[in-house]
């Protein structure tokens, strides 16, 4: 006998079902409470349409993604080599790890005043904040990946007479890649989280700005919620994108297969 959750397509159908029920509950709750301010799903949908008509939606999404691309991109370019270096070279790890671990728990939000002081109200401020937020998880995962390397792989590689460069290229990097990608995925989530927060304060465009502006400029809660929904959907897409990378053979060996 086949159990019901063996049905094909269920992993796609179930989340849609949950979303539909949530919308219904939301709609019902707003109707029953007769709230003037809090919008129902229909008003939010109209809000999104309004933003699209004005061209603001695309403009703000592009603005936010632009900042994430830069901040996150620089974090990847700095964090991976730096992390690999820390993981491989013990004295560097001893030297830098305590500072890293002390900086890491400071919320990027706490850096906002300094970011404005240093970069003013410009794109550089949120980019800096996104960089800060994402560089730590990437660095830590890259250095941990190298440190977790099974010694037997290194010994085998040494036995075959590999030089330093070859050892790095053919053993250390490929062995560390799955764990590095996991760090990158976490970092991208954090980066997206931070761009919104940064835009609420440091700039006047982007999805975070949209939310704060909609509230301040006329208590347009339909646009506030519309902004939140768009942020969520883009976050979901970004995660799915990185998950696609996890299917490449270069890294898929490192994850438990489903």
């Amino acid at each position, binding site marked *: 006998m086949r159990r019901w959750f063996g049905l094909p397509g269920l992993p796609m159908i179930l989340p849609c079902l949950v979303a539909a029920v949530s919308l219904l509950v939301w709609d019902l709750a707003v109707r029953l409470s007769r709230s003037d301010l809090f919008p129902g799903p229909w008003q939010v949908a109209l809000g999104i349409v309004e933003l699209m008509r004005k061209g603001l939606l695309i403009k703000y999404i592009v603005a936010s993604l632009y900042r994430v691309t830069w901040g996150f991109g620089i974090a990847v370019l700095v964090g991976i080599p730096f992390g690999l270096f820390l993981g491989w070279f013990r004295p560097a790890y001893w030297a830098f790890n305590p500072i890293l671990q002390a900086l890491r728990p400071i919320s990027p939000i706490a850096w906002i005043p300094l970011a404005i002081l240093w970069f003013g109200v410009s794109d550089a401020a949120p980019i800096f904040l996104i960089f800060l937020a994402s560089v730590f998880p990437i660095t830590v995962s890259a250095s941990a990946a190298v440190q977790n390397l099974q010694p*037997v*792989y290194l010994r085998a590689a040494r*036995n*075959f*007479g590999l030089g330093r460069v070859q050892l790095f290229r053919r053993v250390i990097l*490929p*062995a560390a*890649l799955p764990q590095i990608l996991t760090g990158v995925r976490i970092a991208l989530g954090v980066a997206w989280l931070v761009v919104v927060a940064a835009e609420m304060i440091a700039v006047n465009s982007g999805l975070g700005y949209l939310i704060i502006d909609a509230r301040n400029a006329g208590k347009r809660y339909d646009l506030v919620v519309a902004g939140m929904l768009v942020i969520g959907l883009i976050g979901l897409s970004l995660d799915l994108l990185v998950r696609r990378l996890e299917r490449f053979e270069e890294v898929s*060996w*490192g994850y438990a297969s489903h």
Partner: protein
Amino acid sequence: MSETVGESRESDRPVVLVRDLWMTYAGRRGSEAVNVLEQIDMEVRKGEFVCIVGPSGCGKTTLLNIIGGFLKPTRGEVVVDGEPLQGPDPRRIFIFQEGGVFPWLTVGDNIGFGILRGRKADRDRVVDRYVEMVGLNGFERAYPRELSGGMRQRVELARALAANPEALYMDEPFGALDYITRFKMRSDLVRIWQAEQKTILFVTHDIDEAVQLADRVIVMGRRPATIRTVVDVPLPRPRDFQSAGYLAARDQIFSAMGINPTTGSEFS
């Protein structure tokens, strides 16, 4: 001019010579230092199949790691091909107990890993040859996680052979395999050893495995490990595991380890 002594037979030349080797691990927190190996003298001749057998934790893996160049002994020396050992060397490939096959490479890429020089076509030919020899045809593009434990050990053996070493150092390579797989792996290893004419130094805790494989069995005792005796096994291959010669060699090893070969009781 005096008559020089002619070159001794190839097979008599020791390729690995271990002299008065000691290994001591410093004790932790004031406890005494532990001698893991005490006064080891042994040799392996060219083309020979030598097994080191001893109880678990007796230091035989440590000994093989020293001979492989991965560990420095506290005292004594290892001479390989007439020269003091410098470190790991592609002419002598180690096969690891815990499995050293790279999980990020396919079977084919693993086997070709140690072929650092030469054109791609030549490398492919070597890989094909050893894929064939260890019986992994059709699995060239598979990843190690898709293979059984026995097949993974075949990949590691093929990878070692493809680098064309003079000797293989094997550290309990079949220890994690089930009985029947081990049995098959042993007979395949003997076949490959005969075809490739490599020197093999093979560590095991399994006395039957040692007698089935080796020309000579070096028997080690418990900590601190010293060599109790060396048993010659001059039996033709394939070996008859019920023959008198086989059983005699087996009994000799059991006795040297202080175990009654029929009852299993210790009489140390």
